[in-house]
């Protein structure tokens, strides 16, 4: 409540915000400005240029913020209303990075949908408006210190992404948008109930939080975690876990996810899977830190392990018997969020390190798969996997990228996902959770088999075989107009391969610092 007055007092006292705080504000202003510019110019070409430029600026500023967090530890802006530490910075990286490649890929993908007559000029402008608003709302999630503000940002991501799924006016898209809107909003209202309870517990336990009106700030809750009433925190954490878990696609609250991710325009699917799920799981983990401080690690960890295994189980069955390419990728996102949740549940330094690394790795590999599958399904004009055959022959570059991405996402060495999954297993056995870790390996094997079962015929089958869709010949060559479709995938595939072999020093430091936010010190070197 005192926020506005302190902010005004700061201004009138002539206090100049520090450089890092300014950067926190400008990184938010960039997409907001881009949204305004796209609305004003209202032209397809300028909308594309503005969006790519804006996301590129966001990437640069994010790198600056990451450097700042590594050197300074953490900093806040707007009198503690916004806050960034290593954990938040780690979530910012995929938002900016995937945002950038998705903006590049959009030019080619939406352009081709335009040529096919699926969308018109008005839709394209609306798409880029939505894109910038989507990036803005997602950036706000890891930057918010006030958990109420974080909730507002997460709910706003739902509304913006529903709006973007509604871009297509077919029945499937509308059904998906409706289910997503209703299920996610109900889930999030549960989460808000939990957040209010956390803040109530904090205001009760700490007179300073009550006096300064900072009871809803994460920093204040984390500092007071040991003082909070365990009875209230237990209920509050369950509400938050179920609520934000719905948005993060954890089973059994995942029912909206395959529909929404399957029916959205492909670049939006990449953002939904690669970035938005991270924002939601980020919220869960923030409250996990507080709840573990109050209740001890045992109960929160058990809940996370349970939801994680359930998500992997649901995903394994659905991937194995899946027919639709994008739904398969959507279920794979359920699986990977399950792995993250499981890994945090295993805990310890390695478990948390693996979870955070896995968030980054999934955010690289999943958009790659969505982009490749989007290009393939545009060429074959179907998403049914049994009708797509011999991609490597009809479009060699995309076919190779699809193959590498598919093997990576299924957990094949030497790619990046394998590295983090291996670390998760290590932490599972290391923490003595033998049953959960063994189940995880079993489910990973089923998912691997499921992926190969679909992937191999798609890539290597005969394009003229029975039951195969005829690839459309009106295709402007893979390298001509398609260059903008290839480039984002090449960037991502390079990262998938490189991160499979080694983790760059700054990223390692950032993840170590982020693990420190969880109250886990790094083990001796």
């Amino acid at each position, binding site marked *: 409540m005192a926020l506005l007055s302190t902010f005004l007092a700061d201004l009138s006292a002539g206090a100049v915000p520090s450089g890092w705080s300014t950067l926190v504000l400008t990184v938010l202003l960039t997409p907001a400005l881009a949204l305004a510019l796209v609305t004003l110019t209202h032209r397809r070409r300028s909308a594309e240029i503005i969006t790519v430029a804006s996301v590129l600026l966001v990437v640069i500023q994010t790198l600056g913020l990451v450097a700042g967090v590594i050197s300074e530890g953490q900093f806040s802006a707007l009198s503690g209303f916004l806050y960034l530490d290593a954990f938040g910075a780690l979530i910012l990286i995929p938002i900016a990075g995937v945002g950038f490649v998705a903006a590049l890929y959009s030019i080619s993908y939406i352009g081709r949908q335009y040529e096919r007559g699926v969308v018109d000029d008005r839709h394209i402008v609306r798409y880029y408006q939505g894109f910038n608003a989507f990036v803005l709302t997602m950036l706000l999630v890891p930057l918010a210190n006030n958990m109420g503000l974080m909730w*507002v940002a997460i709910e706003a991501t739902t*509304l913006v992404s529903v*709006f973007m799924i509604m871009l297509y*006016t077919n029945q499937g898209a509308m059904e998906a948008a*409706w289910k997503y809107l209703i299920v996610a*909003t109900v889930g999030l209202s549960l989460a808000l109930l939990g957040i*209010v309870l956390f803040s109530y517990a904090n205001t009760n336990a700490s007179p300073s939080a009550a006096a300064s009106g900072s009871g809803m700030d994460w920093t204040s809750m984390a500092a007071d975690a040991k003082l909070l009433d365990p009875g209230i925190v237990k209920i509050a954490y369950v509400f938050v876990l179920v609520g934000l878990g719905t948005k993060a696609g954890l089973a059994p609250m995942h029912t909206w996810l395959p529909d929404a991710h399957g029916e959205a325009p492909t670049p939006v699917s990449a953002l939904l899977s690669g970035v938005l799920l991270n924002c939601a799981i980020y919220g869960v983990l923030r409250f996990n830190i507080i709840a573990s401080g109050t209740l001890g690690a045992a109960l929160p960890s058990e809940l996370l392990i349970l939801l994680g295994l359930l998500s992997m189980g649901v995903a394994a069955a659905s991937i194995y018997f*899946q*027919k639709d390419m994008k739904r398969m990728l959507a279920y794979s996102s359920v699986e990977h969020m399950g792995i993250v949740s499981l890994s945090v549940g295993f805990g310890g330094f390695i478990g948390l390190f693996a979870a955070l690394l896995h968030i980054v790795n999934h955010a690289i590999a999943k958009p790659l798969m969505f982009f490749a599958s989007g290009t393939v399904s545009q060429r074959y004009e179907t998403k049914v996997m049994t009708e797509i055959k011999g991609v490597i022959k009809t479009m060699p570059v995309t076919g190779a990228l699809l193959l590498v991405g598919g093997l990576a996402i299924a957990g094949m060495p030497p790619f990046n996902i394998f590295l983090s999954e291996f670390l998760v297993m290590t932490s599972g056995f290391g923490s003595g959770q033998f049953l959960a870790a063994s189940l995880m390996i079993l489910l990973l094997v089923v998912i691997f088999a499921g992926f190969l079962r679909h992937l191999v015929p798609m890539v290597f089958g005969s394009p003229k075989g029975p039951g195969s869709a005829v690839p459309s010949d009106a295709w402007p060559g893979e390298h001509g107009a398609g260059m903008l479709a290839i480039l984002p995938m090449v960037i991502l595939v390079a990262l998938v391969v490189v991160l499979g072999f080694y983790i760059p020093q700054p990223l390692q430091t950032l993840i170590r610092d982020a693990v420190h936010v969880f109250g886990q010190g790094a083990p001796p070197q």
Partner: protein
Amino acid sequence: MQVPLSEILTLSAVALLISTFGVVVRRSFAGWLSAYRYQSVVLAGSTAVIAYETGFWEIYAAAVLTLAVKAIIIPRLLVRVTESVKDEFKIEANPFVSIRLSLLVSALLVALSYGLLRETLISANLDVFAVTYLPVSLSLFFIGLFVMVSRRMALNQVVGLLIIENGLFLFTTALTQGVSLIIEVGILADILVGVMVSALLLVRMSQTFDSFDIASLENLKDD
């Protein structure tokens, strides 16, 4: 004549519950909306009472905002946007759970809310607002959820969500004397945009689908 505070609180709690039952028993969109409007007015009044007793100006502001957004803007917006929607999509002729049974279930949900909170209300040292309004807010939450799952018309799900949200608002205000005003504004903005998005989606669905029956939304599934 001096009316004691507890009487005002009890009366407003009863009014909130009656308006919620109004949504449960009515079959038409106009009926749901007028019950919702009534509920929002009472909610704004309760908020104003809390503001008067605690003396925080932010709560007065929240009461005014609630009145403006929930009692005036949202109902008008919903009526305006759904003008083009045919009348038969606005009437709940054949709900999954009959109206009579719904009424019974809703009454049980209210009893459940009071039962769940009974021990907490006695043991914890809560103020008079929390004691009066927490069970009511929980009832609103449960009944909103029940309305969402027990009806066929998609419009009813929007109304259910709005009731849930009113319950949440009451819960927050009664328990913590409201979140900071800027967050309150953010939440209201989210609700307003949410209502707009869902109304637009409904209009498009009415043009594409044969009905608003949510049972017809079953095309997307794993074979």
